[in-house]
């Protein structure tokens, strides 16, 4: 139909398949990293879909994912901290690549749309997405070293 939906298809297909592969195989450390990257793969795709369908109200989905996705990763980082203790999964190159992808999508959408309130909303979502993913990566890389009983 249009380029935005094509981009979303590529992003969902590629990112989703990669995340599915990562989340089902390998040691726990790799699985939680893949779970964290799910957010950074799907959230830009949702933004692209909102633009592709011409429905600004679909942006709320991306907003909620940018808020709750990192929270989900923090859940695993905290409650699996015993299993992750020896491994310190950081995957910083991957995290920054995903952050760059999110930033690129948000900037492209900002340029495509008319400047206004929607642009600021997009920027807020982008900031939440990137900071959430970086912090979640930090939490996986030994953010909960002293958690025993709690």
């Amino acid at each position, binding site marked *: 139909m249009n380029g935005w939906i094509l981009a979303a298809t590529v992003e969902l297909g590629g990112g989703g398949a990669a995340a599915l592969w990562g989340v089902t195989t390998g040691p726990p450390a790799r699985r939680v990293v893949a779970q964290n990257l799910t957010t950074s793969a799907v959230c830009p795709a949702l933004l692209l879909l909102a633009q592709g*369908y*011409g*429905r*600004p*109200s*679909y942006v709320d989905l991306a907003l909620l994912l940018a808020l709750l996705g990192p929270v989900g990763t923090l859940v695993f980082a905290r409650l699996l901290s015993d299993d992750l203790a020896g491994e310190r999964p950081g995957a910083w190159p991957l995290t920054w690549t995903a952050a760059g992808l999110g930033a690129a999508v948000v900037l492209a959408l900002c340029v495509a749309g008319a400047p206004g309130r929607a642009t600021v909303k997009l920027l807020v979502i982008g900031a939440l997405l990137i900071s959430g993913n970086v912090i979640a990566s930090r939490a996986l890389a030994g953010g909960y070293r002293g958690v025993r009983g709690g």
Partner: protein
Amino acid sequence: MHVLPYPVAAYIFLTGCYGLATSRNLIHAVGCLAVCQSATYVLLLAVGYRDGGTAPVFSDMKPGSRPLVDPVVQALTLTDVVVGATVTALLLALVLQIAKRHGTVDPDELRELRG
């Protein structure tokens, strides 16, 4: 393409049932039940979809300007998601109670315990 989503829903449901029947851990079984429930969401929403349609939400578009998908099945699915979440929570509470009473969460061991 005309029927693809329906077999996918059936497949997800049967996969979840297989997991339920062969599960060796009650928490895992609750997760499989969640998978079964997601099959119903896929089926309901596939029934309501219309080619080229868009959501019947008029905060950002004029009524009547585009074809619309079916809102009734969406409302049903919304209820389904809510009930699914509460069922998961209640079953997990039951599993914790079983673990406390019997000291195991393996269904086979539980059957042996009962005699």
